[in-house]
């Protein structure tokens, strides 16, 4: 379903309904295999739902690896694969029933995203952190070389920004005026060992990106009006000689009350009892897989 419209708008209630189903998928997927990363997945659900259902021009029905003339998305923090898999499935890349194979032997839905098993929607393996911005920039530069006007989107964790390669890429993007990329930072302030500020503080993150020569926007990752206006603004800023980054404030575990406010559910799956508590908070809207 290619979206050729400049700004395709959905009702916020419709987006919220999809997001609720995606959150159900996430907690069910990780609980079923007693592993995986629900915290960051729940935190990025609203953003990825918006990105795939409203923002991007993309072709779910006929996935092409080379992605010519469609917007591309690269998930750099690959451990939040559950949210990506669910959004891809719900957007039509593969049957939602396949979500039941997550992390199981032989599955296309590997623990971290891969191209190895040819899952539609995925163009690059990720998991080892810090690599996705470089990949996105390479793809963006080739779009320019190919005179392809579509855009490249990337998503990164805030903890991931501790990787040096991110800053190599940030420097490169501004120096080479790669202005057809929109990078988003999932600023939930938490990582495996605790708060980002305690593990290794990023300092003034916005000023760092400004100093590296990027256009910097901020948004509330759980408010569709904020996401929409910021993403539209980001798109309008492309093509002006500067790369664009959005610092997106989110809550790890958003949507499941007992997972919020802590880093503890970064990489821990709920048991059967906890799963039921979570599902009671998340209305089924599109039908469970």
């Amino acid at each position, binding site marked *: 379903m290619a979206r050729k419209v400049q700004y395709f708008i959905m009702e916020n209630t419709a987006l919220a309904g999809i997001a609720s189903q995606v959150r159900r998928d996430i907690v069910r997927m990780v609980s079923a295999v007693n592993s995986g990363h629900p915290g960051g997945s729940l935190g990025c659900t609203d953003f990825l739902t918006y990105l795939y259902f409203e923002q991007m021009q993309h072709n779910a029905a006929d996935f092409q690896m080379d992605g010519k003339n469609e917007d591309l998305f690269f998930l750099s923090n690959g451990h939040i694969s559950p949210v990506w898999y669910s959004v891809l499935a719900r957007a039509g890349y593969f049957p939602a029933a396949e979500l039941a194979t997550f992390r199981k032997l032989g599955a296309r839905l590997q623990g971290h995203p891969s191209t190895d098993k040819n899952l539609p929607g995925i*163009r690059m393996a*990720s998991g080892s952190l810090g690599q996705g911005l*470089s990949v*996105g920039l*390479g793809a963006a530069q080739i779009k320019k070389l190919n005179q392809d006007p579509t855009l490249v989107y990337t998503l990164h964790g805030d903890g991931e920004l501790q990787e040096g390669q991110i800053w190599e890429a940030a420097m490169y993007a501004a120096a080479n005026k790669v202005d057809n990329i929109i990078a988003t930072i999932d600023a939930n302030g938490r990582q495996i060992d605790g708060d980002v500020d305690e593990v290794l503080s990023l300092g003034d993150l916005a000023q760092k990106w400004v100093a590296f020569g990027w256009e910097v926007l901020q948004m509330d990752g759980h408010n569709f009006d904020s996401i929409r206006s910021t993403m539209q603004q980001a798109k309008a800023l492309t093509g002006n000689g500067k790369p664009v980054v959005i610092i997106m404030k989110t809550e790890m575990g958003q949507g499941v009350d007992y997972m919020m406010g802590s880093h503890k559910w970064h990489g821990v799956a709920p048991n059967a009892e906890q799963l039921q508590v979570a599902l009671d908070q998340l209305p089924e809207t599109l039908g469970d897989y």
Partner: protein
Amino acid sequence: MEFEVFGNKDTRSGFGEGLAVLGEQNPDVVALCADLTGSLKMDAFQKAHPERFFQAGIAEANMIGLAAGMTIGGKIPFTGTFANFSTGRVYDQIRQSVAYSKKNVKICASHAGLTLGEDGATHQVLEDIGMMRMLPNMTVIVPADFNQTKQATIAIAAHEGPVYLRFGRPVMPIFVKPDAEFVIGKADVLAEGTDVTIIACGHMVWKSIEALKELRAIGISAELINMHTIKPLDAAAILKSVGKTGCVVTAEEHMMNGGLGEAVSQVLSRQYPVPQEYVAVNDTFGESGTPMELMTKYHIDTPDVVAAAKRAIARKSIII
């Protein structure tokens, strides 16, 4: 068995010329370099096709990621930097974004091994073949001279998948014919013999050619194989030759651990165990010196190939 010599040049210049040819032939070829354009001889490509040349600066990890991303729009990226910075420094980037993701990236690595010379051990990578051949999906090529490096550079553009192409800095004799065809994975038998098989790659092929002459002078008939492709390894060529000679010497400008010799021994130990002697660097770092001084000191020189051939032949008569 005389080898025609077509002059003397460095293998990195073969890469530069091959890349320039690709620039004219194939509009999908793009090149990236990490601040070593002159050292890698990428200037000609850069000058002729500035829109397809990407200067990454001294940021190799980003360069590998960029290259991986550039395959997605259908391009064939060639990255260029020293072998040390092409492998160990970026192993995880290559592993995840290139090898595991099966991206069509050509990692072109110069100044490999001891013959980088005076810069010393910080730059003399001797582990790169091992690192690269351990990666699934990776093809590993170590051409022997200027002509073969040029031919290999052109050939890998037509091969779909990740490739590691290793070459070097010293000026060495050119003995591969200018019009020779380079076939990935097909070894070149340079000389036929009956007493011992010498399997060499890179600069050690010329050293082995020199050794052949010395061996012949003392009545030893050696077969010489230029094993320019380390992976996939031409096992059929090895078995055919060793079936005739009954012993083998491997010769490489690389650590004994993980290199050509180990690749060959893996074939032999499983299919046709025979005595094998290794000409390789034995678990030590290098140091500053001229390339030829270093090859002598670290025992990867012509006399070392000759001595290894004698040892291998002697071991054939030992009955266990």
